[in-house]
């Protein structure tokens, strides 16, 4: 244990010891490993998101990109959806 760790402990600061760091990194990486979905499932998710959004927004179907990425504190489904035009008649607008 370094002197800095000791001081952190004495002052009650949340510590970032090697064990805690390893545990956090491992949790994240396993979450990511386990969430690897088959390509066919990802394609299905992409299509269904498109169907829902197309009711309200004019989107560029070909550039809709869906992926699972590691984010702060967890794993996130990221969808990048370029919009052509907001539909004036849509219930959302």
């Amino acid at each position, binding site marked *: 244990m370094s002197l800095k760790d*000791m001081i952190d*402990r004495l002052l009650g600061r949340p510590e970032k010891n090697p*064990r805690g760091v*390893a545990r956090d990194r*491992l949790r994240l990486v396993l979450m990511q*490993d386990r969430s690897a979905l088959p390509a066919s499932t990802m394609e299905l998710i992409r299509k269904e998101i498109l169907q829902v959004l197309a009711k309200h927004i004019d989107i560029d179907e070909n550039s809709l990109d869906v992926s699972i990425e590691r984010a702060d504190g967890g794993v996130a489904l990221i969808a990048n959806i370029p919009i052509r035009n907001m539909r004036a008649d849509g219930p959302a607008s």
Partner: protein
Amino acid sequence: MSETCRVIVITSGKGGVGKTTTTANIGAALANLDEKVALLDTDIGLRNLDLALGLENRIVYDIVDVVEGRARLRQALIKDKRNPNLALLPAAQTRDKSAVSMRQMQQVVEDVKAEGFTFILIDCPAGIEQGFKNATAGADEAIVVTNPEMASVRDADRIIGLLEAQELRNPMLIVNRLRPKMVKAQEALSVEDVQEVLGSSVRLLGIVPEDDAIITSTNRGEPVSLADGSMSGQAFRDIARRLRGEDVPFLDLEEKTGIFDRLMQFFSGKR
């Protein structure tokens, strides 16, 4: 044979975590408990289990010779010089993993079963390729060996998923090479940490501390579980007893702490 035979594959994903040492030690300990044990080295091309057992000079035929009909199973099975209850079917050293198919491996396991063993332990090669698939194909149960370290736990997690896909559910877990001092100092992952990240589908079978005695005993070709006086040997003997259904408490690996350690614990509020 009226007696049942348990076929257990010992696997890890990552190499170098102690699969072969674990296989040799649990096998030797089970044989000392009067079980009839066959050890199968399926790491074809990278034969090592013979060294862990000190049987390297007695190999005439190997598993590929049996599969390809050059030898009968009984000719290839080597009886341990210390305990006739223990036998080894060695891997071939000059061939590769493609020399045996999954179906052939299953047949070998069936033939070994017919010899009246009560335990068959299959030492699986590292990796998740064909060698892994072959080694797991004939098994009914699985032991996953991991070290309390990120890469091997990650690989263990992957292996657990692959075992499930092969209908080998709820594998048993051995945490090998634990360093209690480092865990206590918050420097290394604990057994609880490993269990927590791997989830509740695995059952903890044993905790083996890092131990110099493993190196010296392997150098002699004598499994450490055969001699008294080492923590790792005791841990492997306990694992063998748990495998037979006995309720054996886990070893207390905490070392006796001196006044300085106690002061540190006092200051850190961790007792």
